[in-house]
């Protein structure tokens, strides 16, 4: 097993764990009011998007070079 496979495996598992947790927190905070809550929701959503990118990278869908 190469180093890259281990890194991608860890990234894959981590992306699912962190992404799902971020989305779950986003759902929990959805009803929260105020400017800080609004900014937090936007940033949490973008972070979950980052997890999707990392997941796609781990699966070689994105960033796979010939």
């Amino acid at each position, binding site marked *: 097993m190469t180093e890259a496979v281990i890194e991608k495996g860890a990234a894959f598992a981590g992306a699912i764990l962190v992404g799902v947790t971020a989305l779950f927190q986003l759902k929990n905070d959805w009803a929260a009011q105020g400017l800080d809550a609004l900014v*937090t929701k936007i940033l949490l959503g973008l972070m979950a998007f980052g997890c999707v990118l990392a997941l796609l990278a781990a699966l070689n869908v994105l960033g796979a070079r010939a």
Partner: protein
Amino acid sequence: MATAVGTLDGHEAVAARYHDVDPVYAETRDLRLTGFILFLLSDCVLFSSFIFAYVYLRTSAPAWPPFVGGHQLPWFDTSFAAFNSIVLFGSGVTMHFALENWKHLNKRKFNLWLIATIILGLGFLLGQAHEYSVVGISWAGSTMGASFFTLTGMHGFHVFVGVCYLTILGIQANRGVYTGSKYFGLTAGTLYWHFVDVVWVALFFLFYLW
């Protein structure tokens, strides 16, 4: 107030405590929040300037990665970057948990999640240092290297400042600077940390996935 709040459920109790402050504090809290968000937006402009410069350089180059001395420069290591990104994104989640536990008056869990955030932030910085040592390009000599080290270096500096910031916040919180009603510093620290995470989403895509 404590008895009244104790009869409410979690979120309502947090909201009740949030509003249970004197009017002067409430007003300055809103002003400070607006000021802090303006600071984050100005930081966003700073990163955007360098990002647009990178996009311009890349799209106007005849080949990417560019050729230097007759040899094409290597692509960056996507698998390690994906792993390191998850370390940073994970720290965003732990910081969110830290703030939520502070709001729910659970100081012990706040400390644990805050320490986890700091460790993950340091882990990300170590990962970046490792990447710099093996990346195979330098700052000088190519637009790719200059863009990469400028943007990731600037981001790394933000992460370093964030780690120091969170450490100071942790010390302040344990010295009684913040309460269940007055914790603007912790809110600002959390927003800053989320912002640093989101900037990395853009950099991760631009340098490793595009």
